[in-house]
């Protein structure tokens, strides 16, 4: 046995874990259906039911697609991890990992890769459905693509960190979905995914403004809706800089909470 040979690096193991996580994800019919197909089904239902026009050249479906893409960041990050990690904790997989020389950061890197890949698949599927069925047009302005890119990266990262942090909340693995899913669905209602945000009661708008999803949906609207629609937002503008700063603040808070609250086992 060569005792001098050193341990593999944290990054290399994180990447290896990412590959493994994706393989597991793809083999779980529940996760593929729930995480990837469900948003598409919702899109099909809402897009077909509400055919109103909100403004010159903006249909409700287009508004909804932007909201669903933002929701995708929350589904694949926050929701997926806050359900998956308590289950891994309950099954003892986390305790087993803790017994190995692997660094906890490798585990987080693996989870981030899982989130990023499932998020990318979901966004592509939603965009494709939006373009094919609901007349969503891809932006031509490179500045909008820049906004889209940082929204995806920052939003997804914050969602991942907050999912790991929130994973400390469910008391059991089996009950995790019952704790996490309502939080996400309520946030979606409050944040203007299912309804036009400015049509919601004022208090609801104010509550939503605390949480990141509202800013993600607004950001996605700034990418996929014409700039003339900005006047219809609460502030009368897209508030791009503000969105960036709020998501960044949530990312930092999420990382801090995730590190503080992460537990390998139940007791």
């Amino acid at each position: 046995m060569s005792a001098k040979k050193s341990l593999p690096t944290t990054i290399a193991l994180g990447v290896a874990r990412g590959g493994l996580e994706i393989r597991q994800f793809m083999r779980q019919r529940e996760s593929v259906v729930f995480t990837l197909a469900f948003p598409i089904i919702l899109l099909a239902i809402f897009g077909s039911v509400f055919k109103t026009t909100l403004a010159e050249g903006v249909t409700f479906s287009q508004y909804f697609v932007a909201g669903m893409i933002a929701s995708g960041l929350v589904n694949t990050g926050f929701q997926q991890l806050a359900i998956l990690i308590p289950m891994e904790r309950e099954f003892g997989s986390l305790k087993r990992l803790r017994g190995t020389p692997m660094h906890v950061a490798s585990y987080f890197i693996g989870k981030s890769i899982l989130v990023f890949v499932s998020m990318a698949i979901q966004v592509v599927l939603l965009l494709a459905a939006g373009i094919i069925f609901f007349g969503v047009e891809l932006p031509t302005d490179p500045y909008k693509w820049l906004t889209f890119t940082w929204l995806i990266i920052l939003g997804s990262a914050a969602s991942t960190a907050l999912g790991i942090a929130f994973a400390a909340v469910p008391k059991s693995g089996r009950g995790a979905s019952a704790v996490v899913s309502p939080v996400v669905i309520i946030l979606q209602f409050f944040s203007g995914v299912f309804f036009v945000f400015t049509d919601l009661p004022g208090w609801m708008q104010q509550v939503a403004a605390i949480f990141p999803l509202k800013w993600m949906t607004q950001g996605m609207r700034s990418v996929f809706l014409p700039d003339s629609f900005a006047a219809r937002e609460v502030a009368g503008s897209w508030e791009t800089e503000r969105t960036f700063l709020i998501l960044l603040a949530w990312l930092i808070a999420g990382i801090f909470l995730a590190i503080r609250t992460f537990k390998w086992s139940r007791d």
Partner: protein
Amino acid sequence: MNVIEVQGLHKSYADTKAVDGIDLTISKGEIFALLGPNGAGKTTTVEILEGFRKADSGSISVLGFDPANRGVQARIWRNRIGIVLQSTADAGDLTVQETLSHFAKYYSAPRDVEEVIHSVGLDEKRGALIRTLSGGQRRRLDVGLGIIGSPELLFLDEPTTGFDPEARRAFWALIESLREGGTTILLTTHYLDEAEALADRVAVITRGKILEVSTPSQLGGRASAKARVQWKSDGVIQEELSDNPTDVVRRLAAQFPGEIPELQVLRPSLEDIYLSMIGEI
């Protein structure tokens, strides 16, 4: 050099003393069994040695390292040990081979994956998803994951619970082969025959205290205990306790014309000794 040295180990939960002053010394290459009823403090003791729990007090050295330490040194230490937990039930969407290959990546000098699959007897299941394995097969995979990093010290917490007799024999053979490779093993079990078959020394633990540490054959004065000679006379079972059962049998042989009816010479089994020990408390 001693692989494990523990002195004055204490650990309490809210209102119970789970571990109440345990001393242990386990030397290199030894197979050491912790025997005790459920709730005796076996798992708590082992989990402290594994670094999963913090002791309230006591000095602990495992491979020269305090398991409560964290950081890079702890990872280097974990690279030298293997842990088989009491129960793990992953979702199981990976195959046996994928799981072992992946865990092999965590260590600086892992064992060959195929060799490990073979040694835990999962050759035919190497491509099977974990969730399709039987309880015994899963347990053997757990052991495979415990030894994949070629550990110097292996912890086995109730490794054969739920095994059928044949699977247990196969498992014991696996542990024997690890012994030949020089691995030190700390085993907890509540099967007496398992401790007798595998362990060089056993410690009987109950209510957080060690009652005795000995070899299985000498535990509780087993080797020197009086033998019971039983036979039937006038339709009634007779019994005599003796240090020299041969003399008793010789006397009986002279007394009876032919066969001594229903003759038995009984020595206390490890189980008798163990039960009388934990019953004393």
